[in-house]
C-alpha cells in the first residue's frame, strides 16, 4: 500500500511539470501583454514595469525561476487553513503551508496571485461542496430506490432524473432555475452570494447533472450487489429487506461511485465557470476566465497549476480509497 501511494505520488511530478510548462509557454506566446490593453503606456514606463516583474529576462530564465518559486519547500498543511489575519475565515495560504509562490499578479497592483486565489477560492470550494452534496443526496437515494424497485415507477423516476441531467446542461438549467425560483416564485435572489439561501440555486444547477450520473452508477452497482450470493444468504437468515439493502448491499454497491468522484470533482470545479458567471459569484472560475482575457500571465498559470494540482490530488485520493476498499486492485499492474 505504501509503495503504491509512493509510486502514484512520484508519477504526479512529471504530470505537474508538463502542465506548468504548457501553461507557462502558451500564455507567453500570446500576442499582446498585460500592460497593453487599456491605455498605451509610455515605452519607458512599460520597460520599467517589465523590469520590475522580471519580464525583460530571457524566457528560459523566467521559466526556471518560476519553477523554483513554484516547487513546494515545506509541508505544513495545517497552516493552509489557518486564520492568519484573524477575520474569522480561513486563509488559503499556500505560501505558509507549502512555500508555493505564484508570484505577483500583473493586473492587480500590489497583490500577489496567492492573495487573489485565497480571496476567490473559498467561494468556489463552498459552491463545489454544496453541489457535490446535492449530487450525492439526490443521486444515491434515487439510485438505490431505482435498483430496489427495478422496473417499477421508482425506477422510472430515477431514469427520468438521469435523462434530465444528461440533456439539460448547467448553462440552461441555471437560468431556468433563476427564472422559476427568483422571478416567478420570488423565493430566491437571482444572483449574489450573501444570504444562506443564495447557495441553493447555484448548488442545484451545478449538482443536478452529477446527481444523474450518481444515480445511474448507484443503480448499476446496487443491481450487481443484490444478485450476489451473500444477499441470498442474508435473506435466508431472515434479515429484513431494509437491513439487506442498507447493511449488505449498499457498501459494495457504492464502489463504482468512488471511482466517479475523481472526475466529478474535476468537472464540478471547472463547471463552476459557467455557474459563477450566471449567478455573479466572485469565485476562482470567473477570476480565471477574466485573467486569461486580460493576459495576467502569472494569474493564469497560477490558477491552471492550482486546478491541475487539485485534480491530480483528487484522482490520487480516489485511487487510494479504491484500493483500500477493494483489495483485489492491489495486485493490478
Amino acid at each position, binding site marked *: 500500500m505504501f509503495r503504491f501511494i509512493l509510486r502514484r505520488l512520484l508519477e504526479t511530478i*512529471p*504530470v505537474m511539470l*508538463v*502542465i506548468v510548462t*504548457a*501553461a507557462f509557454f*502558451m*500564455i507567453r*506566446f*500570446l*500576442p*499582446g501583454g498585460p500592460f497593453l490593453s487599456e491605455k498605451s503606456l509610455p515605452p519607458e514606463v512599460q520597460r520599467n514595469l517589465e523590469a520590475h516583474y522580471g519580464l525583460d529576462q530571457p524566457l528560459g530564465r523566467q521559466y526556471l525561476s518560476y519553477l523554483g518559486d513554484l516547487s513546494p519547500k515545506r509541508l505544513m498543511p495545517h497552516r493552509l487553513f489557518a486564520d492568519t489575519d484573524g477575520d474569522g475565515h480561513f486563509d488559503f495560504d499556500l505560501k505558509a503551508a507549502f512555500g508555493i509562490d505564484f508570484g505577483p499578479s500583473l493586473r492587480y497592483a500590489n497583490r500577489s496571485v496567492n492573495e487573489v486565489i485565497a480571496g476567490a477560492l473559498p467561494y468556489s470550494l463552498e459552491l463545489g461542496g454544496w453541489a457535490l452534496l446535492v449530487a450525492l443526496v439526490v443521486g444515491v437515494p434515487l439510485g438505490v430506490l431505482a435498483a430496489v424497485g427495478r422496473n417499477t415507477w421508482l425506477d422510472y423516476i430515477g431514469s427520468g432524473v438521469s*435523462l434530465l441531467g*444528461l*440533456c*439539460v*446542461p448547467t*448553462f*440552461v438549467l*441555471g*437560468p*431556468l432555475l*433563476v*427564472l422559476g425560483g427568483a*422571478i416567478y416564485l420570488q423565493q430566491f435572489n437571482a444572483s449574489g452570494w450573501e444570504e444562506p439561501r443564495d447557495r441553493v440555486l447555484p448548488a442545484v444547477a451545478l449538482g443536478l447533472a452529477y446527481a444523474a*450520473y450518481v444515480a445511474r452508477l448507484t443503480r448499476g452497482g446496487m443491481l450487481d450487489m443484490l444478485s450476489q450470493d451473500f444477499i441470498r444468504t442474508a435473506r435466508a437468515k431472515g434479515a429484513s429487506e431494509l437491513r439487506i439493502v442498507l447493511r449488505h448491499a449498499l457498501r459494495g454497491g457504492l464502489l463504482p461511485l468512488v471511482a466517479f468522484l475523481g472526475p466529478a470533482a*474535476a468537472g464540478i*470545479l*471547472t463547471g463552476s*465557470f*459557467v455557474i459563477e*458567471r*450566471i449567478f455573479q459569484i466572485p469565485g476562482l472560475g470567473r477570476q*480565471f*476566465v477574466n485573467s*486569461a*482575457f486580460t493576459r495576467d500571465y502569472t494569474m*493564469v498559470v497560477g*490558477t*491552471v497549476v492550482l*486546478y*491541475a494540482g*487539485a*485534480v*491530480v490530488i483528487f*484522482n490520487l485520493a480516489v485511487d487510494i480509497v479504491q484500493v483500500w476498499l477493494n483489495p483485489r486492485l492491489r495486485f493490478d499492474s
Partner: protein
Amino acid sequence: MLRLSPNSDRLPPPPPAAAELERGSSLGRDAWRRLRRNRLAVTAAVFLSVLLLACALLPGLLGLSYSAQDLNLRYAAPGPGHWFGTDRLGRDVLARLLFGCRISLAVGLAATVVSLTIGVTWGAVAGYVGGKLDTVMMRIVDIVYALPFTVFVILLMVFSDAFAKSHNLGPTWNILMLFVAIGAVEWLTMARIVRGQVLTLKRMEFVEAARVLALGHGRIIFRHLLPNLLGPVIVYTTLTIPGVMLLEAFLSFLGLGVKAPMSSLGTLIYDGQLEMESHAWLLLCPGAVFSLTLLALNFLGDGLRDALDVRASAD
C-alpha cells in the same frame, strides 16, 4: 466477423455463391433490423433528420436571415409571422435558431471527425505495435486524461482569439480553432476503446493470414483491422457528438467560441438568459432545441449500441 478480408490483387475473387451466402446474415443488416425495432432510437433518428433538413433547407425556402433587423418589431412574442418571436434587435428567433443549429451541428460533427481521426489512429497504432510504444502512448493518454482539460481548451481558445485579432482573421478562424481545440481533447476515450479492440483482433486468424500474404503494417491496420472496429467506433462517435456540442456551447457561453454576428446554440442561450426576465422565449426556444438534440443523439447512440451489440461502456 471472422472473415478473410478480400484482397483483389492477390487472391482470386471468391465464388459468387459464397458471397451470396455471406450477404444472408451480414452484420450491418442484422444491426439495421434491430435498430428499426427500437422505437426510441427511430424517433431520435427521425427528429435528427428533420432538424438537419430544417437547418439545411428552411432558411432558404422561407427566405430567412439571421442578421436582418426589424427595429419596429423588437421583442415580438411567438406568433404567426415570427413563430419563435423576435429578439432585442427585431431579428427572427427561428432564423437565428436554424443558423445557430447549423453552426452547432457543424462544430459537433467536424470536431468529432478530428477526435475520431486522432483517437482511432492513436489507439490502432498503440494496440497493433504493442510493447514499449504501447506503454508510452497509453501513459500519455492517462496523463492527458488526468488534466482539467476544460481549462486547457479555454487557454487554447484565448490563444486563438488573440491570434485572430493580431492577424485580422475572420470569425471562420474561430470556428476552425473550435474544431481543433475540442477535437484535441475528446480523442482519449476513442483511443482507449480502439486499442482494446485491436489488442483482441490482432491475434485472430485473418490478421495472421494477411501477414502471411506479406502485407504492410499500414495496410493491415487500415484495411483489415479498422473495418472490424466499425461497430464500437460508430457507437462511440454518436455519443461523442453531444459531448462536443456541450463543450462548444459551454465555450460560446463564456464568450470564447462562436462570435457575433454568427450564432450558435450556446451564444443564443447566453443572449437569452440575459433577457429572460421579460422575454422568456429567448431562453426557452434555444434551450429546448439544444436539450432535445442532446437527448436524441444519446438515444440514437444507445440504440446503435444495442443494435451493434457493442459491450463498451456508455461513459
